[in-house]
């Protein structure tokens, strides 16, 4: 049994890692879609698209790993969460369809119709981001479980809290997108992205603050996790670090640094994500199902662990190589398209 407990924890970290990589990597390219309406110029839009065209597909693969990995390692959690999050999940999928095909379609459409695919890209990105944030809120606020099934209705996810987390995630993605543009573009486009990063950072801090204040009121257990002695020794540094990173991020924008704003935004996401982990652990369906209850048998988890141990470092290696190949600023005249 001890071995099983360890395995489930290891798998919880692997899934959490996959979801985190997805959130930040697809986060910045969804963020670009959210920001698209603010960049009406065609050349700017071409540059924005070209800055992610070679990598977006790889970014989205982490979402499939997060979903498929959960089904494989924690099938019970997958079986409860997906029907509980039915509407946001379907909305996310439809959003991802529209924005995914837009990458190729907008180059293939006749000039008059290109604008339609720009709208599809922007709308699909925003829809997917909101849906993911709403799903997160719906998980945090608790899910009605009966036996091995979801026991609620198909609108239970809709609450003011889940709407708030939906908006918070969309703002966060937009910040990642804006700082990505600071890193990957130059001239007026970069300047505009830099100005946007300022306002988006403040919006994100408000959003983090709001979610952090409300979460402890959702369930007494969340409050105890964060504020009870001695937990607070370990939890208190998280908000302090958020403040510190935000200051550094502002400074890096002021100093016109290319890389730091994006990297610091990633760090901000990592800290928020750590906060979520602190709230949820060891539940995978909060307050109902722990990672041990949801775990698939040892044979399933070990079989996959071998693959993960060998392949994830390899994947990170060649993904890094692909980013390296397309490193540097994207210029209008040297676009990939």
């Amino acid at each position, binding site marked *: 049994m001890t071995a099983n407990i360890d395995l489930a924890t290891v798998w919880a970290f692997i899934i959490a890692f996959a979801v985190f990589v997805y959130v930040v990597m697809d986060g910045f390219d969804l963020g670009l879609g959210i920001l698209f309406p603010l960049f009406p110029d065609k050349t700017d839009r071409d540059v924005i698209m070209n800055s992610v*065209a*070679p*990598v977006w*597909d*790889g970014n*989205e*693969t982490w*979402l*499939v*790993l997060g*979903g*498929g*990995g959960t*089904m*494989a390692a924690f*099938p*019970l959690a*997958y*079986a*409860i969460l*997906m*029907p509980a999050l*039915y*509407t946001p*999940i*379907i909305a996310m*999928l*439809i959003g991802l*369809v*529209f924005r*995914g*095909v837009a990458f*190729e*379609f907008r*180059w*293939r*459409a006749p000039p008059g119709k290109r604008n339609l695919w720009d709208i599809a890209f922007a709308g699909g990105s925003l829809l997917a981001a909101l849906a993911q944030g709403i799903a997160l809120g719906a998980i945090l606020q608790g899910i009605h479980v009966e036996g*091995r*099934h*979801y026991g609620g209705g*198909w609108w239970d996810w809709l609450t003011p809290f889940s709407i708030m987390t939906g908006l918070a995630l969309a703002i966060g993605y937009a910040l990642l997108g804006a700082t990505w543009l600071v890193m990957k573009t130059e001239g007026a486009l970069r300047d505009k992205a830099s100005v946007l990063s300022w306002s988006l950072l403040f919006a994100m801090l408000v959003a983090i603050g709001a979610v952090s204040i409300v979460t402890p009121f959702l369930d007494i257990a969340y409050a105890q996790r964060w504020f009870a002695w001695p937990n607070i020794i370990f939890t208190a540094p998280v908000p302090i670090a958020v403040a510190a990173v935000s200051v550094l991020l502002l400074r890096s924008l002021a100093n016109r640094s290319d890389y730091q704003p994006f990297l610091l935004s990633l760090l901000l996401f990592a800290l928020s994500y750590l906060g979520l982990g602190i709230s949820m652990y060891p539940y995978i369906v909060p307050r109902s199902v722990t990672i041990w209850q949801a775990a*698939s*048998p040892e*044979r*399933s988890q070990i*079989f*996959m662990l071998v*693959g*993960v141990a060998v*392949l994830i470092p390899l*994947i990170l290696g*060649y*993904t890094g190589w*692909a980013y390296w*190949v*397309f490193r540097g600023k994207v210029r209008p*005249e040297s*676009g*990939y*398209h």
Partner: protein
Amino acid sequence: MAAMFNGFDAVDLARAQFAFTMAFHIVFPAFSIGLASYLAVLEALWLATGREVFINLFNYWLKIFAVGFGMGVVSGVVISYELGANWAAYSDKAGPIVGPLMAYEVLTAFFLESGFLGVMLFGMERVGPKLHFVATSLVAIGTLFSAFWILSANSWMQTPVGYAVNPDGQFVPAGWLKIIFNPSFPYRFVHMVLAAYLTTALVVGAVGAFHLLRDQHLPGARVMFSMAMWMAALVTPIQILAGDQHGLNTLEHQPVKIMGMEGHFQSYKDGAPLYLFGLPDQAAGKVKYAIEIPKLGSLILTHSLDAPMAGLDTVPRENWPPVPIIFWSFRIMVGLGFLMLGLGLFSLWMRWQGRLYESRLLHLFAVAMGPAGFIAVVAGWFTTEVGRQPFTVYGLLRTADSASPLAAPAVGSSLTAFVIVYFIVYAAGLTYLFRLMAQPPHQGEQGPSHAPVRAAGITPAAGVAAEGQTL
């Protein structure tokens, strides 16, 4: 709007949704598997010979690949989440076995494809021709890895072995090698990969023929048409043999599916007929207006004229698959297979006569056969999946017990949404694909990159020479 689904059964709606989204999805991986390999072959030929026609064809088909691959990716993400959303009970029970197989598909295939796709589409100038060829080859290998794992998972649902059932009712693994290489997997894998290659060959052949009908001397059109017709001529006979073997395997492990495909409602003591046509009547339990060849059914399935064959009358009615669907989908697949054989043989004859590029009849035939691979793939997929009914895990887990605890309005609304979205997106995608195919491959054909000055890096002489200098 959601209220209109109150009269429906949520399970039927979930099945309709899976069938709909899967039918749209499956054609794209089938095309991508074949096209990725074709692109790797074209690039290898270009590197080996330096002939410009190969890189022109490579860039021509690369643009088409980019559009098709994108559509395959987004419709595939839908499938991976639909399983949990609509089929939660199945995900809980089969997750410990099917989940890891799909996770391996993501780890070995999806990442490999998407990781190198960017370089394949946009990176020729940045990495040089040789590294670029490595990227193309890895994408092609990725598509085959993907087929390996997903067909292993699918085959396990058809012929489950190597499992135990735990107290929670979950299927748990007892032996992974048995699970991965379950009895129907090798047959299904070979059959599907060959189908993907044939499907692509028919599309390439149709596009080549379309342009030959306008101009017999287009070098690109001649090369692609000739390559495609070799594939049709050589691979179709192998595919028919593989299909026959797959059928024998199905007879051994899923005889009820075969009874449905053949319309064998009753048992035959001394040799079963082959129904060429007929209207299977599920309720009455017989094939109406049947045109049959006596004893041929037994000959094909058992390779013996008088072999007795059990029929659906030996099976409880609640375990019958929907006979009319698989009876017809099977005949559509087989019929198209023999038309493909006809095309291949016709092309051999014309080649022998030296009229491969002149015969308008052959070219018209090839254009007409362009979509045949897709139709055959979907028909074959319907045959094997509908033939698995009324189970998700064959003989063990009923479809009715696999669904999510959702009300019909939820499933009906999402089905409606997918239908609307897919018709918009796929109509646009097909339009763009047709528009790309309607252009002949040009001299100095560009890839998906649209930068103004591109020629230096991608002409073979300059590219290969530059590579040579650095070595």
